[in-house]
Every structure is written in C-alpha cells, then in structure tokens.
C-alpha cells in the first residue's frame, strides 16, 4: 500500500500535502524511543509515534522511511513540518489510536520487516 492508501485507510489528515504520497510502504513499526527506532528503522517503513519534535523527521529521513504517522489527532510543530516538507517526508495524523493504526496496517498485510 502507498502512503496515500494508508491515509485513506486510517482517515488521516496529510500534514504535508506538498510531499509526494505515492511512496510504497514496505513495513511498519511503532515506538516513541528515537534511539530504539534508529536501530530498527527500515527503508519504506511507516512509523507510528506520538513524538513530534524535529528529531523525528531527522530519524525518518535518515532511515529512508515512507512516512511518519501520528495517532489521536496529534499535531506536529510548525518547525518539524517545515523540515518534513524540505526533506520530502510525509506526515499523517489520524484520529485512531496507535493500536488501531497498527491493526489497520496489519490487516492490509504490511509486515514488520521489509
């Protein structure tokens, strides 16, 4: 599934409409410890997190992830969104909880590892 497909499946707002959302999601992960994510991040990953500061975008970009997904309508700071747009990283915000978002990803057969 693409980032665009995921946004529809979890009723998410795309906080970075300027960024191409046709990237393929190859795997998914949820975790809020950035240093943990750094060691488990994979290319094409959809990363579900409640963290919203700039380092989230840095981690997602460095690991070549497909998108960052914020649960429960969490918003992201302006500065972080600006960085996301500059770096071409999609950020979605969904009304669903992290648990529910992962459930949707799993139902769409997105694996834990690419």
């Amino acid at each position, binding site marked *: 599934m693409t980032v665009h497909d995921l946004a529809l499946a979890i009723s998410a707002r795309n906080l970075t409409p300027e960024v191409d959302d046709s990237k393929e999601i190859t795997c998914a992960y949820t975790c809020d*410890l*950035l*240093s*943990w994510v*750094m060691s488990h991040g994979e*290319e094409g990953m959809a990363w579900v997190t409640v963290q919203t500061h*700039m*380092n989230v975008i840095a*981690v997602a970009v460095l690991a070549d992830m497909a998108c960052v997904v914020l649960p429960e309508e969490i918003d992201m700071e302006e500065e972080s969104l600006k960085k996301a747009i500059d770096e071409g990283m999609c950020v979605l915000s969904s009304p669903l909880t992290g648990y529910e978002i992962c459930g949707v990803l799993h139902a769409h057969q997105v694996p834990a590892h690419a």
Partner: protein
Amino acid sequence: MEELIRKSYPVAQADYVSAGHASADIKRTLKQLGVGGDVLRRVAVASYEVELNLVIHSLGGELTLRVLPDQVELISADCGPGIPDISMAMREGFSTANDEARSLGFGAGMGLPNMKRNADTFDIQSTVGVGTTITMGFALPS
C-alpha cells in the same frame, strides 16, 4: 591512501534543534558521490547516532567525514567528559542520558551498540577529563 573528501562539522552540547544537520549533510555528500544502498543507510544511521551522542553526552565536539577510495570513515572527537567504563557504555540498554534527552525519546542505551552494528570497523578511545574519540569505517563496494 588518497583522501577524496574531508568535511568536519562542529556539534554543540545540548543543541537538539540542530541535531541531525551534520548527518543529513553527510548523507547528501555521499549520495552526490554515488554512494547508495546499504552502505549509505548504515553510514546515515551511525552518523546520526554519533552526532546525537555528541549532543547528549559531550561538552561539544566535532564530527568528521572522510571518503577514501575503498571506504567511508566517520570520526567523532569531543572535549569531554570522557567515559569511565567503556564496556558498560557499549551494553544495550545502558544509558546516562539526562531527563531532557529522555523526554525527547533518546537515552534508550542503543547508540554505541547501534554504531558498532552498522559500521564495518569500530574503535572507541576515551579518557575521563579529556574526551572520547570514535572512529568508524564503512567499506565501499569495489
């Protein structure tokens, strides 16, 4: 061996806003040189980890990128405080990060082990009161 590129980036203590700038530039520079795939990803992860370590743990330091014909080298050198027990610091899950770092999601104690895992060669030297130097090598496909 002939050095193709050498770039150094100062990294300030507790500067979480700029954290990641050096790693992003390193990744861009290597991409422009045609380095890609697995090597690029491993360098990117290790450079970010070491840059964050400088921000979180050091009194400030410098990250240097060297590109040689057969490998990429990352060298992190700081001006203290030094690591009292390196074998403890290398253990997954061990961290001395402060509350500010932890509130941002750092301090899982994965930094050094993750660098070692991603690099082809890894060396760490530290003297308390003087500083720490980490040297990592990433072999380039011939």
